[in-house]
């Protein structure tokens, strides 16, 4: 089946080769008038992660890649109670979110609903535009929620989060901060304003970083017993201090602090960026 080259996603990365065919790289043609032309100039062969997956086999649904923006960056409160506050458009999202833990299912849900496959750098849109789309989808979901809430006494869950969103759907902007993880080359960005509390943030980050394709590939190839072991590992909490990694942030003063000590609002107002640190390196952080 033609779609085999989803295999390119192993290691949560993409094997990318770009080739510049310019004869005269220095004095090349005049820039076109529209700044968004985005022309490739540099020849660069990058192979991030193994090429092992290129033999791509099986249906699309089996593969998973890192994503630049995921449904999880959207109001993830929807995930725990996937049913309420959704219409047709958002229900796809929530279903994708709800099943995201099991990669296979998420992809088949995605595939069956025609949701854009979760591929790094696809669709090819600049991050600035992504911000707009995240906000738009957010306001859709929250507006629907608030109207449903009025119509029927909807399930009250994570009240705190909901209030934050229903209060200021229009005025709220996104707060994207960088997230890097020790041992991972390419960082991610997460919108803190899409989360109302540490739990959902940690969940989102775990999904971004810890459910890597290594674990996915291992899951695919391994026996059921092995798979359980992996699942157990996956459930390690970034916040619980019981796993190999711990979540830290750099605050306004430039200090690295453990995430989770201060109230959420205080955290979002002082955080500059996040880092998933190895627990072994994290000793010495104030608690």
């Amino acid at each position, binding site marked *: 089946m033609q779609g085999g080259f989803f295999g390119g996603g192993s290691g949560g990365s993409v094997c990318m080769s770009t080739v510049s065919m310019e004869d005269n790289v*220095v004095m090349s043609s005049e820039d076109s008038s529209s700044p968004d032309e985005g022309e490739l100039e540099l020849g660069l*062969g990058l192979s991030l992660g193994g090429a092992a997956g290129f033999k791509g086999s099986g249906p699309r649904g089996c593969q998973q890649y890192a994503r630049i923006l995921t449904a999880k960056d959207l109001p993830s409160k929807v995930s725990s109670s996937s049913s309420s506050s959704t219409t047709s458009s958002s229900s*796809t999202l929530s279903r994708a979110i709800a099943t995201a833990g099991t990669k296979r299912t998420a992809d088949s849900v995605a595939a069956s609903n025609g949701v854009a496959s979760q591929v790094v750098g696809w669709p090819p849109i600049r991050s600035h535009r992504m911000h707009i789309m995240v906000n738009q989808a957010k306001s859709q979901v929250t507006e629907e929620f608030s109207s449903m809430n009025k119509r029927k006494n909807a399930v009250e869950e994570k009240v705190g989060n909901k209030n934050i969103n229903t209060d200021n759907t229009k005025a709220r902007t996104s707060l994207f901060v960088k997230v890097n993880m020790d041992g991972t080359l390419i960082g991610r960005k997460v919108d803190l304003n899409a989360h109302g509390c540490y739990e959902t943030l940690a969940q989102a980050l775990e999904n971004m970083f810890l459910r890597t394709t290594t674990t996915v590939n291992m899951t695919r190839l391994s026996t059921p017993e092995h798979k359980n072991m992996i699942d157990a590992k996956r459930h390690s909490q970034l916040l619980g201090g019981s796993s190999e990694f711990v979540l830290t942030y750099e605050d306004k003063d430039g200090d690295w602090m453990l995430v989770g000590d201060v109230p959420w609002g205080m955290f979002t107002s002082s955080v500059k960026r996040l880092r998933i640190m190895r627990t072994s390196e994290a000793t010495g952080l104030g608690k």
Partner: protein
Amino acid sequence: MNYFPDEVLEHIFDFVTSQRDRNSVSQVCKPWYKIESSSRQKVFVGNCYAISPERVIERFPGLKSITLKGKPHFADFNLVPPDWGGFVYPWIEAFARNNMGLEELKLKRMIISDECLELISRSFANFKSLVLVSCEGFSTDGLAAIASNCSFLRELDLQENDVEDHRGHWLSCFPDTCTSLVSLNFACLKGDVNLAALERLVARSPNLRSLRLNHAVPLDILQKILMRAPHLVDLGVGSYVHDPDSETYNKLVTALQKCKSVRSLSGFLEAAPQCLSAFHLICPNLTSLNLSYAPGIHGTELRKLIRHCRKLQRLWILDCIGDEGLEVVASSCKDLQEIRVFPSDPFVGNAAVTEVGLVALSSGCPKLHSILYFCQQMTNAALITVAKNRPNFTRFRLCILDPTKPDAVTNQPLDEGFGAIVHSCKGLRRLSMSGRLTDRVFLYIGMYAEQLEMISIAFAGDTDEGMQYLLNGCKKLRKLEIRDCPLAMQRF
């Protein structure tokens, strides 16, 4: 060659402005090379690592304006590691050290620090224009340095940069003596700006023709600004949320009535779609409209707006306009040359435009030659129709949100459709493809796309042969972007 004194040749070369032509001139003979190099003022470096700053300075001592590009295009989509490079500091440092009379700097996908901005502001007395596109590494502090020290600044244009916003008063840093501003674009800044300082700046800038505001500038300030700058040609509205019955809105209408020169409109970064009718006044003169950051504008309000834009040449829009909306575009905008339709939500399977909108545009807009189209699905039949309707495409970029989706009706690969495009559009220079594609499409491209200079491919092709067809056939190919293609994997 020796008939003319150097000054005459130099004068003649002044009329040769495009980089390509100047490069050709410099290759004719040694004397021409010397004269051209010493007189060239505008230099374009497409790859900042292809040549050293020292070499550029040596060759073009009269350099006044430089454009530098850093990271590859894929960096926009997070496909390049963050520490790849593209630092501009070495260039600025070299220019400063060599006392170059730098006046204009345009950077794309580069990293520029606050220190670097400060160095620029202090080193070049005649510095006039700073244009930063998709750059990062700086904050509003760096902007403050530029504002404070560049006495003759004409242009500060920030497009889609990642700027750390310290909410400083960089706008207040423009001294009262600075009255030279022609163009100011800070739409990408995330933080608040000093609104009073903004108003005063506009008031003392009689030459201001282009102003793009960020979301922190509310409607009442916009109205005051427009009253002070009725000669604006390019306007980017910040926030457009208001009560339609308010006095502010009425004042805005009055202000817009005076703005007879506006030809380009963008922004609406936060918009309440009611009462866009205030802008119906300026729509008839618009040649460029960019609503791709305005998800709040859609539906009937959007269509009403478009219907007034009879002279539109360039339209950037979100796909929430829908196929229906594109049909309105096709029937109203007969001068349309370029259109870009961006996705408003990349994850929902209900992307609002399909092949229907594309076909409508191709049949309704006779001058359309450049398109970027993000859509839900495509068919070979539609592409064949588009190719027949519109053989004048020079840039054709199609992005199906599901990157390997086949023909939505027949389930076949889209080879025939894209083949028709390259066969019919003899002037095609840039092509981006998506959807299910086999080696066959590369056969067609190699055979027909004689003018093709840049191609972007993702998830396409089967074997090496595809690449061979492409590389052997397209003699003018300069830039090739590939990701996730089996044909590439085996060869590279």
